[in-house]
């Protein structure tokens, strides 16, 4: 089991699983997959904007439960040591620099996903799976932006 889980499977295995989750959400509860909505459900409930938690929060909790179960079965984390280019550039004890950068990047992710009506899941998979033109535009835009910004970071960091 540990050997199986420590290697990533072929791309079509994960692609099929994610595609079936998309289809399964429609088939069971007629909803479009999305993850940032779970965070939003938490915020809206905590700030009194909504009086209950939506299904999206349950989906987000499921993502966390699945990731925890994976870690227990695999016997270790699949996140990697440190945190990518940030701890390599700033050092693994640069809590303010790495933490501050991650916090700021998280704000861009949260704000941008809400404004665009979805994240990599909601627009990139959910919206494109129902051929929503706005989701194709959003997906093309965040892919192109992220690729461009990654090359800028590689050049300067």
């Amino acid at each position, binding site marked *: 089991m540990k050997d199986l889980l420590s290697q990533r499977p072929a*791309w*079509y295995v994960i*692609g*099929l*699983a994610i*595609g*079936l*989750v*998309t289809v*399964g959400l429609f*088939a*069971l*509860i007629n*909803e479009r997959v999305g*993850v*940032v909505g779970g*965070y939003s459900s938490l*915020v809206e409930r905590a*700030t009194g*904007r909504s009086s209950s938690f939506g299904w999206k929060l*349950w*989906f987000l909790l499921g*993502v966390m*439960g*699945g*990731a*925890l*179960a994976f*870690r227990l079965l695999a016997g270790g984390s*699949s*996140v990697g040591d440190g945190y990518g*280019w940030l701890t390599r550039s700033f050092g693994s004890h640069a809590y303010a620099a790495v933490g*501050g950068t*991650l916090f700021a*990047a*998280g*704000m861009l*992710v*949260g*704000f*941008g*996903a*809400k*404004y*665009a009506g979805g994240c990599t899941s909601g627009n990139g*998979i959910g919206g*494109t*799976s*129902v*051929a929503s033109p*706005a*989701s194709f535009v*959003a997906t093309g*835009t965040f*892919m192109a*932006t*992220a690729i461009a*910004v*990654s090359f800028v*970071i590689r050049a300067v960091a």
Partner: protein
Amino acid sequence: MRARLAALGLGAVFGVAMSWGQFVDPDRIRDMLLLRDPYLYLMMGTAVAVGLLGTRLMRRLHARALLTGDPVRWETTRPARRHVVGAAIFGMGWAVADTCPAPIAAQLAQGALWSVFTFAGVLVGIVGYLRWQEEPSRSRAASRLGRARLETD
């Protein structure tokens, strides 16, 4: 209740897939965004192909959702400025942190403590968005536009 359990269960499959496919590893995402590794693009292409086939098939069969009884249907949205501007802001954050909302939650659940910062940032970003949308001047503009700007998924 059954709908919540269904969301929880399908979310768990999603979380395992994110973890097993190593989308929780920022260096994997960085390699994909630097075009060194096509895995992300091939995975998303497969997922969308399966999603398109499944949703078209359910619509053709006039399927009803098993737990809610609703006809399986969806709305599509015409592209607007927010889909470009919002996605560009999102893309910047994605490239800096090499992660997005599903992997952030999965990283945290796997015990990656750095992701506490990213998770908190996402929540604060959403609060900022909601406050911005609720500003009186924006609300007036939104009602002139038929509240189209307040639509979120």
